[in-house]
C-alpha cells in the first residue's frame, strides 16, 4: 500500500490557527474529563477511606494486566445532566485486558452518591453490556452501589432499556456462553444484588461487601426483624451458607487477585481471523490532527490528511480515486487489522453516495470491518439532484451500510447533520463503537440554518398574535436560539446523553479504534445477506 502524501504545511497560518483552537478545545476536554473522574466532595472520599475501600480507579488499575491499555467509554456521560451530580454517570465502563483476556469492565463509583444508579448510569451499564453481547466479551463487574437513585426512579425503572435490562443482558450473556465475574466490594442492594448473583463467578470482600435484596433498615421496616449487615448478606454468610457468593476475600486487593486468577481459568476464545499484518506506526504524527481539524466547524478540510494520521504507516489503498470525490473510500490497516474506510470529503452527491454504497458492500463481502469518519453536512438537495435520484441513492447507501454484517466503527470528526448521520453509520446504525472528537457537532441541520428557521416560525407566530418584533429583538432571539442549538448539538451535550461511546482526544483515535477492532473480532462475522436495494 502506498503512503499518503500529506500536503499539510505545519508552518502555515491556517495550521497554526487550527492548532490554537484545538489546543483550547483539548484543554477544555481534559478539564471536564479530569473533573468527571477525580473531582469529588471530600466527605465522599473520607467515607471511602474510613471504610478501607479503594477508589474505583485504583481497583481498576489493580485489576488490569500491567503494561496494557484501557479504553474508557463515555467518561462524560451525564456530564450535563442532574446539575452535574453524577459525573461519568457514577460508574466506569471500558475495555481492558485482564489475565490476557479482553474484557468489558463495569465499575460502580461509590464516590458518586454511594454508587447509586441514575437513569444515565443504567444507560451506561446497559450499553457496556450490549458491547459485551455484540463483541462476545466477558464482563467483570466491580460492585459497590447503593442501588437505584430513588428520586429519579420513574426514569430508570420499568422500561425496556431501564434497570431490568442489566440483568436481562447478564442472562443473555450467560446463555451465549460469555463469562461474567462480579467482585463485590461494597453493598449490592435490591436490583444490584442480582449483578453478583447472575454472574458466573463472584468474589466478596469480608467486612465491606454485602449482597441482599433489602438492607437491614428495609428488613426492619418490612418485617420488624433486626439483623446486621454481616448476618444478612456478608461474605461469610454468602460463601458458607447461602452459596450466593463463591469466594470470600480478606480485602479488596485479595478480591482482585482472586478475580484475576478466575479470569485466568477461562478459555481464550478464538478470534475471527481478520486479515492482519504486523502493525506500523503512522508515518505522520497523529498530533498533527490538531492543526488539521478546523477552528471553524464550517471550514472544509481534507479527510485524507486525517486518515494519514490514524492508519498504519499512513498507507491507504484508495478505491475509485476519480469517482464521487466527496466520498473517500479505501483499505488501510489499523494496529495491523485490515479495515475499509468510508470518509466524507464534502457533501454527499449521487456519485459519492453510490460509490460509498458499493464500497460498503465490497467490504461486507470481503468480511473487512468498516470505519466511518463522519464530517457530513448531508445529502445534496435541489431539483437537479432529486431528478437524478439523490433520495434513492442515499437510500441505497443507507441500505448497504445498515445491512452489513461486518463490525462497524464510527468517528464524529467534525459536523454530522441530517441524513448524512444515518448514511455514515450514526448511533442508530449499531456501530460497535462510536466516538466523537471534542469539536464535533450533531444535529438535524446546521445551527444557523436551524436558528433562521426557528426565528421565522417565532416571528410568524408573534405576527399572528399581532405583535411585531424589532430587528434587534429578532437578532437577540436568533442568537439565543443559535447558542442553545450549538450547546445541544455539541459533543459534550450529545456525549452526556450517550449518543456516542465517549469523546476522544483526536490523537487517541488510532488506539481507540485499534482496541475496538481487536475486541470486535471476538464475535464471528456472519455471511453477507442484504435487503432490497432501490436501484
Amino acid at each position, binding site marked *: 500500500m502506498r503512503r499518503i502524501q500529506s500536503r499539510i504545511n505545519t508552518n502555515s497560518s491556517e495550521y497554526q490557527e487550527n492548532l490554537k483552537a484545538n489546543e483550547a478545545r483539548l484543554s477544555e476536554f481534559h478539564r471536564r474529563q479530569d473533573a468527571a473522574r477525580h473531582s469529588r466532595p471530600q466527605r465522599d472520599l473520607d467515607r471511602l477511606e474510613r471504610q478501607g475501600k479503594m477508589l474505583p480507579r485504583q481497583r481498576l*488499575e*489493580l*485489576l*488490569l*494486566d*500491567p*503494561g496494557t491499555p484501557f479504553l474508557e467509554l463515555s467518561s462524560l456521560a451525564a456530564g450535563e445532566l442532574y446539575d452535574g451530580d453524577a459525573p461519568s454517570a457514577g460508574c466506569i465502563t471500558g475495555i481492558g485486558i*485482564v489475565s490476557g483476556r479482553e474484557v468489558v469492565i463495569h465499575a460502580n463509583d461509590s464516590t458518586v452518591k454511594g454508587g447509586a444508579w441514575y437513569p444515565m448510569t443504567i444507560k451506561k451499564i446497559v450499553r457496556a453490556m450490549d458491547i459485551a453481547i455484540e463483541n462476545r466479551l466477558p464482563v467483570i463487574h466491580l460492585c459497590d452501589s447503593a442501588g437505584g437513585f430513588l428520586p429519579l426512579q420513574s426514569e430508570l425503572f420499568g422500561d425496556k432499556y431501564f434497570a431490568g435490562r442489566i440483568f436481562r443482558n447478564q442472562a443473555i450473556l450467560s446463555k451465549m456462553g460469555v463469562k461474567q465475574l462480579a467482585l463485590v466490594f461494597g453493598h449490592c442492594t435490591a436490583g444490584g444484588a442480582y449483578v453478583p448473583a447472575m454472574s458466573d463467578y463472584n468474589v466478596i470482600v469480608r467486612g465491606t461487601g454485602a449482597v441482599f435484596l433489602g438492607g437491614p433498615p428495609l428488613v426492619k421496616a418490612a418485617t420488624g426483624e433486626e439483623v446486621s449487615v454481616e448476618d444478612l448478606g456478608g461474605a461469610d454468610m454468602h460463601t458458607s451458607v447461602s452459596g450466593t457468593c463463591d469466594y470470600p*476475600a*480478606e*480485602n479488596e*486487593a*485479595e478480591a*482482585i*487477585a*482472586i478475580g*484475576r486468577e478466575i479470569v485466568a481459568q477461562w478459555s481464550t476464545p478464538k478470534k475471527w481471523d481478520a486479515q492482519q499484518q504486523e502493525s506500523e506506526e503512522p508515518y505522520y504524527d497523529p498530533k498533527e490532527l490538531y492543526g488539521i481539524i478546523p477552528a471553524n466547524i464550517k471550514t472544509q478540510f481534507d479527510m485524507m490528511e486525517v486518515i494519514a494520521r490514524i492508519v498504519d504507516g499512513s498507507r491507504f489503498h484508495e478505491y475509485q480515486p476519480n469517482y464521487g470525490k466527496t466520498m473517500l473510500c479505501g483499505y488501510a490497516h489499523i494496529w495491523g487489522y485490515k479495515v475499509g474506510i468510508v470518509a466524507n470529503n464534502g457533501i454527499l452527491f449521487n456519485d459519492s453516495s453510490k460509490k460509498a454504497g458499493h464500497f460498503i458492500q465490497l467490504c461486507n463481502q470481503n468480511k473487512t470491518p468498516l470505519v466511518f469518519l463522519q464530517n457530513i453536512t448531508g445529502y445534496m438537495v435541489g431539483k437537479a439532484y432529486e431528478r437524478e435520484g439523490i433520495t434513492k441513492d442515499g437510500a441505497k447507501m443507507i441500505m448497504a451500510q445498515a445491512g452489513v454484517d461486518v463490525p462497524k466503527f464510527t468517528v464524529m470528526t467534525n459536523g454530522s447533520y441530517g441524513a448524512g448521520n444515518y448514511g455514515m453509520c450514526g448511533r442508530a446504525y449499531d456501530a460497535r463503537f462510536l466516538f466523537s472528537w471534542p469539536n464535533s457537532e450533531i444535529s438535524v441541520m446546521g445551527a444557523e440554518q436551524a436558528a433562521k428557521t426557528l426565528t421565522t416560525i417565532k416571528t410568524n407566530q408573534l405576527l399572528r398574535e399581532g405583535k411585531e418584533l424589532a430587528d434587534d429583538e429578532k437578532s437577540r432571539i436568533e442568537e439565543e436560539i443559535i447558542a442553545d442549538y450549538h450547546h445541544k448539538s455539541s459533543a459534550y451535550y450529545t456525549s452526556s446523553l450517550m449518543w456516542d461511546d465517549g469523546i476522544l482526544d483526536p490523537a487517541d483515535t488510532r488506539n481507540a479504534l485499534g482496541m475496538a477492532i481487536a475486541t470486535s473480532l471476538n464475535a464471528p462475522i456472519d455471511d453477507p445477506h442484504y435487503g432490497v436495494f432501490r436501484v
Partner: protein
Amino acid sequence: MRYTFKLADEMVEVAPRSLANELVLAIGDRDCKVIFDHDRSGACQLTLDGRSYQSWVARDGDDIFLKIEGRYFKVTAFDPRSLVGAAAAGEGSIRAPMPGVVVELLVAEGDEVVAGAKLMTIESMKLQSTVKAARDGIVKRISVAAGSEFNKDDVLVEIDGE
C-alpha cells in the same frame, strides 16, 4: 495490576511498560529496558539499560532464590492474598461438619495444638475423617468422647487461642 516482589523488608512493584520489540519494565520508580535470557540450568543473563548481569536463579513456590554478582538473595513474589487471608485465625470452636460418631480422640484437654493438628477421627456414612485444629492454641474443652454421637454443627472441640 502491579506485581510486587519482596526483597528483605522492602516491597518493589514491577510492571511491564512495553512488551513490544523491547521489553521495558517499570521497577519501583524506574523504567528499565530489559533483555532477559535463561537456560534450563537456571543460569540467567540480564541486560538492564545496557548493563549485563549474570545470575543463577531457582524458584520454590513464590520464593525466588538468586545468586547475582556473587551474592545471594531471596525475593518473594508477593501475592496480595497472602497479606491477611492465609494468616487469619480460624475459628476456636470446631463444629461437626455432618452428623456422625467419634471414633478416636487424638488430643486431650489442655493439649497445645497448632493449626492443622489432628484432633479426632470421626465417622459418618461409613466414611472416616479427621477433625483438625483451625488455629494454634490450647484445647480448652472436648465436648465428645470416643463412641459418642453428634449432630451437624455440634461443637466438638474448643480451642483457646491468643
